[in-house]
């Protein structure tokens, strides 16, 4: 059974966000990487991209399929984890350590609607 960090918030689209102040780092959950299978490609936005909650900010591909990445919050991309370009398989090995983008939240209140670890675990049970 995967463990979902208690300090993260989770979206129903299977992204997690670790929020500190008005910044958050976003990745996909262990459940999402299991569903995808072996990740071979991650396509991420540029620094400065403006995102709306629920909007696609990139794509992730496994050998079999392509999936959209959805932003759990609105904000501006301040940092992109470019290491994933060359080592996309880290998403499978360490999904909750593989952040994809860092976002400066424009509406921090949105995070309140996200799931906590217990709620998310119930969702994917």
């Amino acid at each position, binding site marked *: 059974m995967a463990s979902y960090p208690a300090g993260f918030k989770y979206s129903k689209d299977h992204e997690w966000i670790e929020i500190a102040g008005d910044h958050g780092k976003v990745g996909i959950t262990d459940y999402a990487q299991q569903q995808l*299978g*072996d990740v*071979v*490609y991650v*396509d991420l936005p540029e620094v400065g991209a403006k995102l709306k909650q629920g909007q696609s900010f990139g*794509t992730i*591909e*496994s*050998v*079999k399929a*392509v999936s959209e990445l959805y932003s759990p919050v609105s904000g501006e991309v301040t940092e992109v984890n470019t290491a994933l*370009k060359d080592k996309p398989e880290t998403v499978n090995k360490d999904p909750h350590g593989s952040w994809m983008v860092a976002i400066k939240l424009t509406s921090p209140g949105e995070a309140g609607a996200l799931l906590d670890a217990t709620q998310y675990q119930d969702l994917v049970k």
Partner: protein
Amino acid sequence: MEQATEAPLKKTPLNARHRASGAKMVPFGGWDMPVEYSGLSNEHAAVRARAGLFDVSHMGEIEIAGTDALAAVQRISSNDASKLAVGQAQYSGLLTPQGTFVDDLLVYRLGPAHFLLVVNAGNIPKDYAWIAEQIKPVGDAVAVDASSRYALLAIQGPEALNVLQPLTGVDLSSIKYYWFAHGEVANVRATVSRTGYTGEDGFEIFVPPQSADKVWLALLESGQAADVIPCGLGARDTLRLEAGMRLHGNDIDETTTAIEADLNWIVGWKKDDFVGAAALREQKASGATRKIVGFEMLDRGIARHGYDAYIGDAKAGLVTSGTQTPFLKKAIGMAYLPLEHTAAGSEFDVDIRGRRTRARVVTMPFYKRAK
């Protein structure tokens, strides 16, 4: 692939085994099938380095028998079945009068007047109806859908022979590529064929459905020392693509002819009339305007089935298969392109979700095993 109907999924005799073993199951061609066991890349690598075991019992088996069975097969199958000795098999096409693919298949000659056709799972009813209709004028030949009488296991990879040999009295080293023999495997009546869909040496084993689980477990046990693992359809697809093998429904279908699919070698040009012959002879004479090619991506990105190919600003073709291969570690695929752009080395663009991405034509297969 999308499910065409809401009908309940069919199950192979190994369905319970797959579920109990924790395989990830998906609908495929109307069947509930394992897409992966331990992970697609891991399974793909195992087949290239050691061996993998596949359940391909969803494949269909249609038998044709009767004194005119050869004539019947010659009529519906594009390849020349008269070249087959008893005990030999060949790859072939089941073609429309336009020379396009109803399906692709393997034709096994079980006896002088008895043939076994192995067809794709999703096409069994369509193929059977087509064959039954087309052979009506032939005389003494009858087609039977015998799919429910066979389970089919595939052991594929360089260790396949060593894993299978201890379980059978059949001398496997004496079976040549695309030949088969009857015997027993794990004390179960079996037909052992030196064929596969992975680009590796290996065997496909036909057994009665009620004994499939016994043979499956025996093969895994025999393969334990060599670390043979069960594999799903995901690895089967990436393995066949690396080997340059066409997939019906992706690379060939009722819109593509055998010539366009670059499968002239499965057309019996010298034999008498067969369904599709006239159209193919005409296209051969006039020249096809497009052809399938293998390609690899030059820019980062993975081209996939259904993506458009561009020459300059003009939409010029279609990607029919594409993936990031776990073994060659690059993005490869197959596409139909205008004939003048099919030479190895010529470049084109693929529209990957709105982004033009450079690709280059390469010679297939992408992967060829060392002899």
